[in-house]
């Protein structure tokens, strides 16, 4: 983000708070519009309202700094990294900094998405908020210095700050931020406060402990599922066996006879059983007899989808990148090679199943849920409950994992819960079981990819083509009639979020990338960690090795030769190769490498493995080298890469949701497996030093891992991997430590 100074919507208001201390609020006042940009609309807001909506940072008279974070904590460390950025420019005492989720309000929208909404997807938190967070910290610091200068009758330029104090070195004086806060609040707000040079950083670049670590080890951290409000009931929803089936007839007698069951309600997505507690609700649901009208039900079938997508690979798609003249180069080529790939549906399977608590009073509502998309969720909730958005108090809870599932622009699970709350008129928590979560749709969509290369007789690539066929996970948003409810809302360019590959980095003169984005409203699909990069990069990076092998080129050197004009790609490639001792694997072991640049970040990964005769794979080591620009908290970066490696291994070995005639076949962790401790290989991560702008981190480690692993299998066995998951090809993953 290049924005300098505060945008109109982000300007600051600073005020003193009772008993000393200082409150920084953003936005408010000025032009008001009745849309999502300013939820304080609706007449002159009282001080209390403005306080609740606009509060961003509170500096207490005892020196504590409390920061509200507009991004959602989904495990990636947003509640730690965001405050670090503010604290750096503020020169706060980090040990006295605390943080929590902000309210859902325009002031907290992510600049990456044009400051249109709070949306924790696309690895956009740090890179989106970085600049604005620094400016707030720097402005408050200037005001504290000005207050001290007034107090000491000296010039601000003679003062310095560190660790929550202003120092007057010449006169041997100092004052704490807490002491100065009240006076600072009276100072004019600087418009373009100077920002630190990276060489001056004392917090950014440090591997600080996570702010939420203590609560996450003693059971006290509150997730949505832990919310408990007075008189709360618990509901589960019986859903149709096929997506978008409708309840036709419901016999609720047996369900209502279950002790603890209070009510049964038809809602658009199914039949809700509302009870005193979860166990009664679940028993009630089992006793419920529902026949489903399946006239409009989805009949997606995995095998049929594969056939359809494979057929579409023969048809030109919508061009998304065109360099040079691919057809001409193909005619002139010594050889043309191509390969087709297929990837199945996958479930996000976050550890915390979906859940939403709603307290609906008729004239207002409070909602608690783990969400990556609280702005849109709140608008849908307001529409369903028939309330102005200002009357919906939406509490973004920490998520027990998200991976994209909690960033649904259709707000499916929030809408369900609001329908239940509206029908029940009582405080209610709507729970999803693991089976509900696994079978409930919004999967990573299936995809087919064809890559083709034109080659000269040395194996140099003269033309590259890449065709993707997959479901447009954003399409449903544009055709849903419920969109009327949020029609005034401006949406960011969602096409960017599909992450269709256009960034193929190699120095190839002729490139044609095209795509078929299918629209299947009957099949709920959604982005999942790294979106289409997972499939596109798998095809691209395995096909590079296919060519390298055929022309006896070393896959690492082959890539190097094509990356001479891409220094950041080259640097991570070299760093990964060096850290992994590329080319020096011991006997019986093979290595594979892959590289990727996206989200303003770069990664190369090396997998070293061996394959037994019965196709059991032992992974000896995985090395990642990343360049994420400025690493705000390097240990959080390493943690995210480790996380992505394990997430990718699960996808590559096991990840498949299979639909047969519209019915999802998987239900829980027995038939939808996760990588476990005994299968986890040694994982090493190198973070390259950089002062570039921060790039995205959360998804970075996912897409290149699969191709690096498949390339190692190719090196070991000569077998090309053209579909996932590997379990379907007879591969198993060996235990790491045998008896």
């Amino acid at each position, binding site marked *: 983000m290049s924005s300098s100074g505060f945008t109109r919507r982000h300007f600051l208001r600073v005020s003193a708070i009772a008993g000393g201390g200082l409150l920084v609020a953003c936005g408010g006042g000025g032009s008001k519009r009745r849309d999502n940009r300013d939820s304080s609309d609706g007449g002159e807001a009282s001080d209390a309202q403005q306080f609740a909506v606009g509060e961003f940072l509170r500096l207490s008279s005892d020196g504590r700094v409390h920061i509200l974070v507009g991004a959602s904590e989904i495990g990636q460390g947003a509640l730690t990294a965001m405050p670090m950025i503010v604290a750096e420019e503020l020169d706060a005492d980090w040990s006295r900094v605390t943080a929590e989720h902000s309210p859902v309000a325009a002031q907290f929208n992510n600049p990456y998405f044009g400051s249109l909404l709070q949306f924790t997807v696309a690895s956009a938190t740090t890179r989106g908020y970085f600049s604005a967070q620094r400016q707030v910290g720097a402005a408050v610091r200037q005001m504290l210095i000005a207050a001290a200068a007034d107090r000491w009758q000296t010039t601000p330029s003679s003062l310095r700050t560190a660790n929550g104090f202003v120092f007057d070195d010449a006169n041997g004086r100092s004052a704490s931020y807490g002491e100065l806060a009240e006076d600072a609040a009276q100072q004019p707000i600087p418009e373009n406060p100077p920002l630190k040079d990276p060489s001056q950083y004392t917090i950014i670049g440090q591997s600080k402990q996570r702010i939420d670590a203590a609560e996450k080890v003693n*059971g006290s951290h509150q997730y949505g599922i832990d919310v408990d409000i007075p008189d709360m009931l618990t509901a589960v929803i019986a859903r149709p066996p096929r997506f978008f089936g409708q309840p036709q007839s419901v016999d609720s007698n047996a369900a209502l006879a279950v002790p603890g069951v209070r009510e049964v309600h038809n809602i658009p997505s199914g039949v809700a059983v509302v009870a005193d*507690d979860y166990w009664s609700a679940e028993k009630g649901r089992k006793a419920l007899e529902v026949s489903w009208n399946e006239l409009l039900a989805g009949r997606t079938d995995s095998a049929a989808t594969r056939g359809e997508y494979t057929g579409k690979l023969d048809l030109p798609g919508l061009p998304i990148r065109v360099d040079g003249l691919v057809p001409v180069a193909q005619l002139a080529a010594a050889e043309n090679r191509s390969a087709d790939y297929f990837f199945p549906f996958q479930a996000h399977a976050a550890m915390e199943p979906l859940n939403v608590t709603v307290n609906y009073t008729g004239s207002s509502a409070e909602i608690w849920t783990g969400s990556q998309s609280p702005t849109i969720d709140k608008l849908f909730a307001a529409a369903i409950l028939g309330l102005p958005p200002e009357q919906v108090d939406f509490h973004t809870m920490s998520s027990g994992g998200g991976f994209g599932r909690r960033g649904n622009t259709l707000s499916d699970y929030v809408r369900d819960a609001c329908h239940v709350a509206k029908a029940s008129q009582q405080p209610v928590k709507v729970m999803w079981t693991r089976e509900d979560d696994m079978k409930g749709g919004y999967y990573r969509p299936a995809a087919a990819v064809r890559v083709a290369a034109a080659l000269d007789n040395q194996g140099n690539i003269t033309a590259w083509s890449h065709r993707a066929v997959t479901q447009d996970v954003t399409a449903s948003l544009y055709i849903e009639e419920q969109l009327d409810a949020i029609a005034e809302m401006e949406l960011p360019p969602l096409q960017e979020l599909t992450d269709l590959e256009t960034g193929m980095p190699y120095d190839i003169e002729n490139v044609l990338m095209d795509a078929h984005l299918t629209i299947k409203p009957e099949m709920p699909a959604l982005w999942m960690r790294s979106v289409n990069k997972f499939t596109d990069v798998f095809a691209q990076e395995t096909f590079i090795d296919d060519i390298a092998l055929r022309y006896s080129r070393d896959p690492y050197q082959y890539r190097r030769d094509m990356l001479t004009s891409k220094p950041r790609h080259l640097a991570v490639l070299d760093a990964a190769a060096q850290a992994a001792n590329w080319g020096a694997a011991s006997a019986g072991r093979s290595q594979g490498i892959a590289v990727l640049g996206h989200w303003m970040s770069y990664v190369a990964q090396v997998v070293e493995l061996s394959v037994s005769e019965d196709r059991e794979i032992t992974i000896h080591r995985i090395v990642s080298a990343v360049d994420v620009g400025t690493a705000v908290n390097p240990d959080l970066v390493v943690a995210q890469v480790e996380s992505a490696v394990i997430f990718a291994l699960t996808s590559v070995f096991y990840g498949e949701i299979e639909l047969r005639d519209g019915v999802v076949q998987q239900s829980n962790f027995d038939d939808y497996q996760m990588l476990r401790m005994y299968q986890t290989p040694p994982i090493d991560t190198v973070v390259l030093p950089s002062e570039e702008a921060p790039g995205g981190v959360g998804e970075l480690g996912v897409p290149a891992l699969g191709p690096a692993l498949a390339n190692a299998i190719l090196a070991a066995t000569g077998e090309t991997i053209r579909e996932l998951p590997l379990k379907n090809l007879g591969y198993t993953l060996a235990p790491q430590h045998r008896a």
Partner: protein
Amino acid sequence: MFTIRVNGEDHTVDVPADKPLLWVLRENLKLTGSKYGCGQALCGACTVHVDGQPTRACVMPVSAAENHDIKTVEVIDRDRIGRLVQTAWQELNVPQCGYCQSGQIMAATALLTENRSPSDRDIDEAMSGNICRCGTYPRIRKAIHKIASEQL
């Protein structure tokens, strides 16, 4: 009516005999540190100690929990090893989303209580019933080794 001994105190609850211990802890006793993840003893998020043994509370009917000593993550810091585990978890930034970590900590505490210098294979056996979708396994392994080698 069932009387269960949780974290050193007796609690009498009026619930059906088949209500799982997990939901009695979470809903009746308001001890929400133990998490629901799968309901079928497949993921370990609900792990508590029953007479010191790591146990999946999501499949243990409350009727079977009577006359046992049940301990949850909320009081694991009363136990020296539990405290060491919590501290190492923080120092190594183990938790990410954190949702599975109550179960991981209960499993790790039970392991280190039984075995003060677990091998990698011991760790695999004790910890592989606990799924972490964030992939914190390498740090969990490191934390267990660190405690064993430096503090036990």
